[in-house]
């Protein structure tokens, strides 16, 4: 899906023209490996992010399958508890930091300049650097599995002192890898904000932008606000482990709960960082295939901003059983319940967009519709978790695991796949194979529900998280979950097949690949040439 270098690259023309007022002359672009190492083009960097993310999805997915294989039946059959803990930890870290976040960043890189009519991102060389930090960070992280003492084994939330005093020696490298990934996110966020604020086509006001740009703009501010907090807390860990400090060690006058406050102050906005771009993608797809403008555009913008602001005020709902003072417990219960309101507003707006539309069910739409239903189910379990007294029974059980996997897998991941199916024609010039995509869709829907729905029940019945073996009353639920997990995992091979086939060929797609698609990216050819909007387009806005 990387755009082919056009036969007549502009450079060859300008070298024969007079140099007064011409575009800057530069050497012929490199080919092969150096092309990808050095590219500053938003389309190529977008593709790099997406390919990296897809690879990491499979690695993180294999870790999950090790977990589910062990949990298939009671007893310890395949791995020992120490390794099991590494698998659950690495599954979480890879999926959050190496799969979901880079996927959204890849989509941002490809589509934001196209949607606002800009020739590229504001800071193209910084863009290249932001990407290449990621393979370094995650090679380092994955290598910790091979270090003496094994890799991180304390959960993706790495609470102290399990992750400091009692942690394996590789923890210092885990911290370094997160620092590198964090820098990548911060630089990427700066780039996105600078691009959106400065490089919109003339006539495109903020309230004219596609919602994907709005959700990414807000996400970028969240990233800049909270990634430094993560950097702070992992540096405090680094010091506790290596330099004799006691930030999180009570015996030295420190406080393990401080770790949790700092981590979740990052961690809660982080989960909104992982979902807001998904909201933007779905807000592009549903209007296209319902052939009706998004209902309540302004409300959608305000709701996204409200969610982002509120996301800073809810963090301790992850800490309801830590022993917070009553006033704090109540405050966080109330704010967590409130954040459900703007989220609900968005769901209502999508459904009202469908109402009295003219709907077709192409693959992007299938995934977007599944998102609306299944993310909402995840939202319902989230609302139940917000009820603090009840949370004492849900916390650290599979009920929580069910909740966050619903909002992340048929939530964020389905939105990513919807976006890929939606924009593949623009990237490659071909429609993805519909039959294969439909198989991918239905197998994924069945797989995802078989995997995660039973977890609501095993959690309510009393199964804690992060255990490699369980009491007999949880056996049936775990059996079904494990079968579902393998089905879901295998189905993703279909996705890879669709993408590869689409890059190589398929039914030709016109510029406006989807009849109901409205935004600026559909005015450039399919596949999009390497350089687009070198002259800003004239933007026609809707009359209000």
């Amino acid at each position, binding site marked *: 899906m990387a755009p082919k270098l056009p036969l007549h690259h502009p450079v060859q023309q300008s070298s024969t023209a007079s140099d007064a007022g011409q575009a800057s002359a530069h050497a012929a672009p490199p080919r092969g490996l150096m092309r990808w190492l050095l590219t500053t083009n938003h389309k190529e960097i977008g593709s790099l992010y997406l390919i990296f993310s897809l690879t990491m999805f499979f690695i993180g997915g294999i870790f999950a399958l090790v977990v589910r294989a062990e949990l298939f039946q*009671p*007893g*310890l059959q395949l791995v020992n*508890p120490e390794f099991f*803990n590494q698998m659950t930890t690495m599954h979480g870290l890879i999926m959050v930091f190496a799969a979901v976040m880079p996927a959204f960043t890849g989509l941002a890189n490809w589509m934001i300049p196209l949607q606002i009519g800009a020739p590229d991102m504001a800071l193209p060389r910084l863009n290249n650097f932001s990407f290449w930090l990621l393979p370094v960070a995650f090679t380092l992280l994955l290598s910790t599995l091979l270090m003496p003492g094994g890799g991180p084994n*304390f959960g993706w939330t790495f*609470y102290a*002192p*399990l992750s400091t005093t*009692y942690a394996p020696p590789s923890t210092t490298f885990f911290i370094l890898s997160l620092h590198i990934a964090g820098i990548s996110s911060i630089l990427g966020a700066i780039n996105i904000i600078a691009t959106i604020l400065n490089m919109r086509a003339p006539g495109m006001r903020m309230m004219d932008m596609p919602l994907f740009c709005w959700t990414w703009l807000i996400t970028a501010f969240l990233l800049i606000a909270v990634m430094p907090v993560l950097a702070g807390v992992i540096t405090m860990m680094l010091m506790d482990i290596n330099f004799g400090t006691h930030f999180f*060690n009570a*015996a030295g006058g420190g406080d*393990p709960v401080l770790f949790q406050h700092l981590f979740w102050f990052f961690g809660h906005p982080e989960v909104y960082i992982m979902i807001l771009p998904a909201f933007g993608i779905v807000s592009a797809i549903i209007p296209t295939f*319902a*052939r*009706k*403008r998004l209902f*309540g555009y302004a*409300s959608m913008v305000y709701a996204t901003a409200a969610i982002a602001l509120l996301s800073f005020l809810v963090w301790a709902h992850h800490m309801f*059983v*830590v*022993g917070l003072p*009553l006033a704090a417990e*109540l405050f966080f*219960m*109330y704010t967590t319940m*409130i954040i*459900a*309101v703007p989220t609900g*507003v968005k769901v*209502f707006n999508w459904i*009202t*967009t*469908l*109402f009295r*539309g*003219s709907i*077709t069910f192409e693959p992007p739409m299938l995934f977007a519709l599944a998102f609306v239903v299944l993310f909402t*189910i995840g939202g*319902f379990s989230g609302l*139940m978790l917000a009820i*603090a*007294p*009840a949370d*004492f*029974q849900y*916390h*650290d059980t599979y009920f929580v695991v069910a909740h966050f996997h619903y909002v992340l897998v048929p939530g964020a991941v389905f939105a990513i796949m919807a976006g890929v199916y939606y924009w593949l024609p623009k990237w490659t010039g071909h429609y993805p194979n519909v039959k294969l995509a439909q198989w991918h869709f239905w197998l994924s829907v069945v797989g995802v529900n078989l995997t995660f729905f039973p977890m609501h*029940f095993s959690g*309510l*019945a*009393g199964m*804690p998280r*992060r*255990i*490699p*073996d369980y*009491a*007999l*009353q949880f056996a049936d639920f775990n059996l079904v979950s494990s079968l579902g997990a393998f089905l879901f995992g295998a189905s993703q091979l279909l996705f890879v097949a669709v993408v590869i086939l689409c890059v190589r060929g398929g039914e030709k797609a016109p510029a406006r690949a989807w009849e109901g698609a409205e935004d600026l990216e559909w005015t450039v050819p399919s596949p999009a040439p390497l350089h687009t909007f070198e002259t800003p387009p004239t933007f026609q806005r809707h009359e209000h």
Partner: protein
Amino acid sequence: MRTSFVWVANGMAGLVVAPAALANGWNMPVGVSDLSQEIHSLHMTIFWICVIIGVVVFGVMFYSLFKFRRSRGAKAANFHENTVVEVIWTAVPLLILIGMAVPATATLKKMYDASDAELDVMIIGQQWRWRYEYLGEEVAFNSSLSTPRAQVRGEEPRGEHYLLEVDNPLVLPINRKVRFLMTSDDVIHSWWVPDFAVKQDTIPGFVNENWVRINEPGIYRGQCAELCGMDHGFMPIVVHAMEEEEFDTWLAERREEAEQEAMGVDREWELEELMERGEGVYASICASCHQPEGQGSPPAFPALAGNQRLLDDADWHLDTVANGVPGTAMPAFRSTLNPVELAAVVTWTRNAWGNDTGDAVQPSAVVEKLAQ
């Protein structure tokens, strides 16, 4: 005092929930305390609210997907905003949530009120067992998983309470308010008994407070609910709740035993007595890491059978068990094992599996060592 809202919701829920509550393998237990029942009601109330909202919302959605299909000839309408509707569907959910927040607040306040307790029990999380101390009573003991590892490996058939059974359950009286003071000796653990709806993180350096008043005698089982390392899944909780007189008798018996044990520190113990006692301590405390035959799991868990340093240096051996090895997985057992238990387990280790040193470590020697 329940609000009328909760009564109504409870009533509705009761009609439909009764079948669900019976299928208890699927739902949160109602539990055996007043608070656990309130929490169950809150849970069912928010659950039904979500179901109703889901039915309405998905109903409209699926209706639209069906009725407004292009293949049926649907033509798209033109509308794309409506401020009144946006205000309504912002305000109505907000009101529903306020409605939920009121009873939730009331219940939370009760959960936080541990005053006027009739019994105080200290709960200490350790890697990987629980320790219970009846405050003011000199009665204290460790509670470790008693499921044989052979069952975990599938070499023996699994019992009914697989992974949910312990050697020494926590014993509590019913109908008395029991206050828990909870902490940890190492990492964060979490003490959870679903039938009491009591869950609290046990945090090193902090003492958390919680309470229960159990209404029904019985045996109640729970698990550690915070990832705490290798055997996080293998440190369950068992509470044996009994009638008040039965409890008082039990406590008196334990108090006597503790006194005997304390006196036992001063006397001279025979090798056979120490071995017998030490075998039991080893099985419940040491075997999970160092294995039943002392073969260990090197390098993390050294072998004890044939361990040359252990054989040569009895002083180092005792010091290691009492004070641990900082920077490794070997904890200090001086706060988990009393001097008799320490003496016995060191004696056992020095003589089992062909180690055969013939050493008998006396509790009085341990007391001296601990004082250094």
